[in-house]
């Protein structure tokens, strides 16, 4: 039986978008960074990029009892 790795880059994209937007808003409200459109945009962009990257490097969870080698 063949096996594949299911990764979720789209989910990572939106996870990074929401997390980045949230972190950006909190940092702006706290006055840590100035309230400019650039600072509002930077964290979501960074989050989206990191989210997609993480989706491709995230550790793979194998099925119970599956001893087959991880596909490359």
């Amino acid at each position: 039986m063949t096996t594949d790795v299911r990764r979720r880059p789209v989910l990572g994209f939106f996870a990074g978008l929401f997390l980045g937007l949230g972190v950006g808003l909190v940092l702006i409200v706290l006055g840590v960074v100035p309230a400019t459109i650039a600072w509002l945009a930077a964290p979501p962009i960074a989050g989206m990029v990191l989210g997609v990257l993480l989706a491709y490097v995230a550790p793979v969870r194998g099925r119970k009892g599956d001893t087959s080698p991880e596909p490359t």
Partner: protein
Amino acid sequence: MKRRPIMLVLAGTVAAVVAVPLAASAVEAEGCSGSVTTTDAAGAELGSVEVPGPGATQADPLPVDPAGTVVWSGSTDAVITNGSWSITVGGVRVASGDLENADGETSAGGTENLADAFAPIAWALRGSMVIPVSGTLTGDGGSCHGSGWITGTGAVTSSPIFWSGLGLGVIGLLMFIGMFAGTKVVAGGAAAAGGAS
């Protein structure tokens, strides 16, 4: 390694976006002068600044109460007619218009009641948000440009923007957990080709 150029482009894009705001923190006033005084809801003075002059910088922003008032006055160095004006907040133009000035006046002033302002403006002025503001007037006879920094007053937790950010952050974290949990070995070829989902 076809992915390496893509990674470099993405990293460069992020670095460029982050670097932009670090380079924009100058305070300036050209072609005009004036003063701005802010008060709280009870009428007590919160801060005052002369433009040009010290204060209203990013490190020492002018406090503004969302339930208070802003008393302002200003004059231009020359008579400016048939021009246009604009106000930018946080790098975004929020108001603009045309100026005829048929009477040839060089000064103006007024009191703005922030309690009547658009709700998101009041939200932004709760907490410690540091906001760059600037105004420009250009027309026949000269031009005027002034800029400075303002900040809100009150507790950060009174700002809906703070709670919105916190909520979005929690949603993002939960989605990340789902992403990690969903990265797994599956049988068959259904999840091949990257498993975009």
